[in-house]
């Protein structure tokens, strides 16, 4: 495809410009299999990290050894052998690149498969008036291309791989990393703290509205390599940023572990909009293969009138264990969670959110759309907690489940804890099936059975799809259709 080729060339030329993406620490290497203090030290050394970070990693590792794998989620999978995983691998790059011809064709192929959207291609090609999107592509644990850094720097925005932030902005990393998700937080977050390899760092200074949407493409590539990303976004007073995260993964048979941590910090009057489209390999129709996705995402609305909005479209992974949460500490702060989780075949998802209301007049909205097909199990698990000082706090929750066929399951597990006399908490839940009548109506108008299903399910998800940035919404709509292939008939 000509367009894909063009993108590959564009990305390659950008990569060439930003050579810091190819510094020596990513020289071809894989750590020995398994996990030990030595591996933690190896990762830290590879990344040429300061002593304090190595210490932090080691504390996390030692704490992790004392922890038990959680079993409360409604997901079932064979026991993970944490000694049978590679914790560090980097793509092979020979020397510093001097020209396009030297870019690893394998790497270019990955970009091609990533299918960078047209909007971004336009931007990469420098089309006049094109919508600005910056891409920090994460290729197998190490960032290899960062674009638009200069444009962002003009406004004082820092957007770079986290390892680079550790080197160039240690004071910010030291201050904020682990401040929302401490290294003791939970089994997977603790593991991540010990062995995280890369991820994104983003800092929006006071009063700045980030001039472009920030996006990161994650991809798990090398066989049996766990992916431990760590993302940290800080929005200072009065700032705004919209961050997009999208994922793809190749077919493979072994289960792959992914345990990411995302921390968001939002100051007074600031806002972060975080959108995810996750379509990692879900395994085949018999549940063989597929990604295990155990993610900890949490936002701290620290200042007054701060706002965070999580929007997720989860269609991939064999197991999804994910609860993007909001700590509403500042008075009048706002937390939003909009989710679409689609499970087909043997997929299992246990996902939802936590809204922790601490400040006065805080409000939160939860809209969850769970779609289950095949023999899949889909659970919404959500906590709404109103603290003692959360006067006049409000929450509104809507959980809708849609079933396709009669072998799948949908479950809604809301937890409500209220210590505030003046709080208002509303919870609505529905479960419905795609009716034969609806399918026939669409088919009678000329849509195939699968097109009909995609249309009906997209209608069901509409409220959430509308929350996504434009270019993501289009991708997500297609993805909804693709994810349900084979679910009818």
């Amino acid at each position: 495809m000509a367009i894909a080729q063009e993108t590959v060339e564009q990305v390659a030329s950008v990569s060439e410009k930003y050579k810091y993406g190819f510094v020596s620490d990513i020289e071809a290497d894989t750590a020995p299999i398994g996990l030990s203090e030595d591996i933690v030290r190896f990762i830290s050394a590879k990344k040429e990290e300061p002593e304090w970070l190595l210490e932090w990693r080691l504390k996390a590792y030692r704490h992790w050894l004392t922890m038990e794998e959680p079993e409360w989620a409604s997901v079932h999978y064979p026991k993970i052998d944490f000694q049978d995983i590679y914790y560090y691998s980097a793509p092979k790059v020979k020397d510093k690149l001097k020209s396009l011809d030297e870019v690893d064709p394998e790497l270019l192929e990955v970009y091609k498969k990533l299918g960078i959207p047209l909007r971004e291609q336009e931007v990469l090609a420098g089309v006049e008036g094109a919508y600005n999107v910056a891409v920090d592509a994460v290729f197998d644990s190490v960032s290899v291309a960062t674009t638009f850094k200069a444009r962002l720097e003009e406004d004082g925005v820092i957007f770079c791989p986290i390892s680079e932030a550790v080197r160039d902005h240690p004071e910010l990393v030291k201050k904020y990393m682990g401040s929302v998700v401490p290294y003791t937080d939970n089994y997977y977050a603790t593991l991540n703290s010990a062995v995280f390899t890369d991820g994104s760092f983003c800092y929006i200074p006071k009063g700045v509205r980030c001039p472009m949407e920030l996006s990161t493409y994650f991809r798990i590539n090398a066989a049996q390599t766990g992916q431990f990303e760590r993302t940290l976004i800080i929005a200072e007073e009065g700032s705004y940023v919209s961050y997009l995260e999208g994922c793809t993964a190749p077919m493979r048979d072994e289960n792959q572990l992914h345990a990411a941590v995302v921390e968001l910090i939002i100051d007074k009057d600031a806002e972060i909009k975080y959108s995810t489209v996750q379509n990692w390999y879900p395994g085949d129709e018999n549940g063989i293969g597929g990604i295990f996705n155990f993610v900890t995402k949490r936002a701290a609305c620290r200042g007054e009138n701060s706002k965070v909005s999580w929007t997720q479209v989860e269609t991939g992974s064999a197991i999804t264990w994910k609860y993007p949460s909001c700590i509403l500490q500042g008075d009048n702060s706002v937390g939003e969670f909009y989710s679409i989780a689609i499970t087909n075949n043997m997929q299992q998802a246990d996902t939802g959110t936590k809204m922790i209301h601490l400040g006065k007049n805080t409000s939160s909205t939860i809209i969850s759309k769970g779609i289950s097909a095949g023999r899949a199990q889909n659970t919404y698990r959500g906590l709404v907690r109103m603290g003692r000082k959360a006067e006049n706090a409000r929450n509104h929750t809507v959980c809708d489940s849609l079933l396709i066929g009669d072998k799948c399951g949908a479950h809604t597990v809301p937890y409500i804890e209220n210590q505030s006399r003046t709080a208002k908490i509303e919870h609505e839940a529905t479960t419905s099936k795609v009716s034969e009548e609806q399918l026939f109506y669409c088919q009678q108008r000329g849509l195939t059975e699968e097109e009909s299903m995609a249309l009906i399910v997209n209608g069901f998800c509409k409220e959430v799809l509308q929350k996504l940035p434009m270019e993501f919404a289009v991708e997500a709509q297609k993805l909804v259709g693709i994810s349900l292939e084979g679910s009818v008939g």
Partner: protein
Amino acid sequence: MLEIKDLHATIGGKEILKGITLTINAGEIHAVMGPNGAGKSTLSYVLAGRSGYEVTSGSVTYKGEDLLALSPDERACKGIFLAFQYPVEIPGVASATFMKTAYNARQKYRGEQEVDAMEFLKLVRVKTKELGIKDEMLKRAVNVGFSGGEKKRNEVLQMALLEPDLMLLDETDSGLDIDALKIAADGINRLRSPERAGLIITHYQRLLDYIIPDFVHVLADGRIVKSGDKSLALELEEKGYAEMSAA
């Protein structure tokens, strides 16, 4: 255009159609009348290919092809349109999106150019104007919160847009007041042409005052018991189904 021969069909093991033979040529409008439970709607569903309706014997040929071998969407793309007695709600899907998807599905099937949103709006606005439908309805979710009249008018709008060769109208008049009925009938009449045929299923002769059929058939207990021209409809109205069926 359509040749039905000794068609038998069951639903849930129960025989509803017990040997229907009917030929509809291009340019003709046929009306099928009959009491509740006679099998009128079943006939339209079998022709449209709804699942759960099993043809046990007989044949249906559409434009020289075995209709029963085609999937519902293939039938639709080949020009069969069923205006539903009870149009179905599809929450979250705007009417305009629904119709554009349907329009493009047919275009694609026929190897013709698909239209973009702008072109589509131009196309659909011509039709809404003709049918006196407010554009606001295009933004609402398909049939959700529509009044009975709006639902039926929406069916006629979709039909006008998709320009089928064979129109199947299942009790399109039910639930319509006289003004809405006239508008719907107008829309249908506008589609009448020497190349197009129609099968109108109705309880009452009222609709046939506005859409003059070429033939009228009386369906009772899964069989066509009497056929004639439009005067048969008036006779039915006078004598009632019981007497006609007994005859």
